């Protein structure tokens, strides 16, 4: 992949990548959609049929108030009701590391959706490694700013970890993007990427 500049969408570079991946006039489900900004943007600019799942009531209210159809529930159990292959894309942005059962979530995403877009912070980034090496404590960086006892992140993963899980699940990685700030990085992404975005589907 060529190194290059990535702009922002709604203040986030991973959203810019997702905005680029999603084809127009498709059906999109965003898990952990927050206040629904990304879905609103996709509906307005890509004509997608947008749905969201979010646990926090205040965020759900904001999302519904902006016209996005959001359902209040937990991602770990929230997908069971949907029929198979109901969506073209299921998005999980910066949330996989917060789920109790990431592997189940990934499977469910690819049951209800033809493709999954997964964006996550890379725990293999050199700053994380250095932090742990020198402090001897649970790493704290700009990407992982929390004390271990306050962190919502309960399943830390790296770029290599995700690739390995994708292989184990027999998934096809259609695209992979590695971001450091506003740059796409190509060399040694497991060491240099702050955020990774994967587009995966089941091998048919």
């Amino acid at each position: 992949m060529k190194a290059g500049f990535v702009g922002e969408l709604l203040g986030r570079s991973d959203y810019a990548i997702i905005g680029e991946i999603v084809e127009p006039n498709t059906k999109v489900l965003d898990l952990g959609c927050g206040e629904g900004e990304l879905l609103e943007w996709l509906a307005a600019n890509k004509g997608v049929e947008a749905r969201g799942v979010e646990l926090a009531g205040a965020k759900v209210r904001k999302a519904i108030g902006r016209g996005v159809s959001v359902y209040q529930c937990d991602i770990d159990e929230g997908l069971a009701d949907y029929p198979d292959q109901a969506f073209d894309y299921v998005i999980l942005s910066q949330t996989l590391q917060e789920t109790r059962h990431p592997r189940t979530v990934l499977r469910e995403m690819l049951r209800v959706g033809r493709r999954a877009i997964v964006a996550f912070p890379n725990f293999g980034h050199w700053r994380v490694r250095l932090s742990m090496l020198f402090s001897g404590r649970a790493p704290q960086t700009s990407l992982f700013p929390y004390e271990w006892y306050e962190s919502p992140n309960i399943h830390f993963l790296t770029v290599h970890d995700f690739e390995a899980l994708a292989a184990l699940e027999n998934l096809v990685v259609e695209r992979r993007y590695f971001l450091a700030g506003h740059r796409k990085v190509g060399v040694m992404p497991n060491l240099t990427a702050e955020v990774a975005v994967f587009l995966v589907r089941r091998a048919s």
Partner: protein
Amino acid sequence: MKTLPEMIVEANTVRFDAISLDSGATLAPVDVAYETYGELNAAKTNAILVLHAFSGDAHAAGISALDGKPGWWDNMIGPHKAFDTNKYFVICTNVLGGCRGTTGPGSTNPATGCPFAMSFPVITIGDMVRLQRMLIDWFGIKRLLSVSGGSMGGMQALEWAVCYPDRVVSAIPIATTTRHSAQQIAFNEVGRQAIMADLDWSDGNYYGKQPPARGLAVARMVGHITYMSDDSMREKFGRRLRGKENFSFGFDVDFEVESYLRYRGSQFVNRFDANSYLYITKAMDYFDLSNGHPTLAAAMEKTDARFLVISFSSDWLYPSYQSQELVRALRSRNRDVAYVELQSNYGHDSFLVDVAEQTDLVRGFLANTFEKAQ
């Protein structure tokens, strides 16, 4: 700050030749009382039908020209409110079987010249909605932008979406259920038995005589308890005594809560017909959206309306699990549904009294639905 001029409103009535009912009976003729707020646009695409709960009526908003009272959802309907009457044309009818202008057991039976009383046919939520549809036809409205209501109003909204899917763009069922649980039926039955145990009920033939005021008042007292929550009752009444410092050591009113319930009970008698209480509660108990379908989800297959489903955390009469059942059925058919449980201490009454968050939700949902539908 400038005060807005109050919206002074009056109910109208339309008479239709006949309506066939789910029971097989026919009512002929049938009157329906309604109020409207705002203006119907030329394309007739901005109409919203608002549906009242058990004891409501057609007077949903504005100030009644008759008695100067505000409508039951006046905090939700009006200029710049959730149902913005500068933008939308809002219709509310009194339900079939009611006692506020629409034909009910207290209406005169044309065959006898006397009130129907218990010869009034048993009615269903489906019958109520069928009569509303006749009125919507009469207005020449092909599709309602939305159907919305809380409690029994929510049941009607759901019935609309499933029975007349091509007539509604969206539905906003609030604090409601797809069918009554044993507990809900039980509370209704206590109310009915209170009325029927009152000797003044006289098998329903009390018109022109003393109505079963004590029975109806007790029924209403039970109802009011179910509309509140433990928290809201503690906050509103606690164990405070009414106008005294010590117990009376008798059975007059001691506690504030007793005084409140007695007052609400006696007020209700002045505006509600005991037989309507029987008929309407029965219609709620019979309601089951999945009737005639193998499953609730199968019933949802018939509608492609957008849904906004709202429940309230402290509502133990129509608990959130019932709304979630509805939402799960909609999701299983991949329908467009938004759902949130709002935090409120007011119990089932929340949808009438705690409307700030509900307003933001409904306003945003309607604006987006209206825009998409144009």
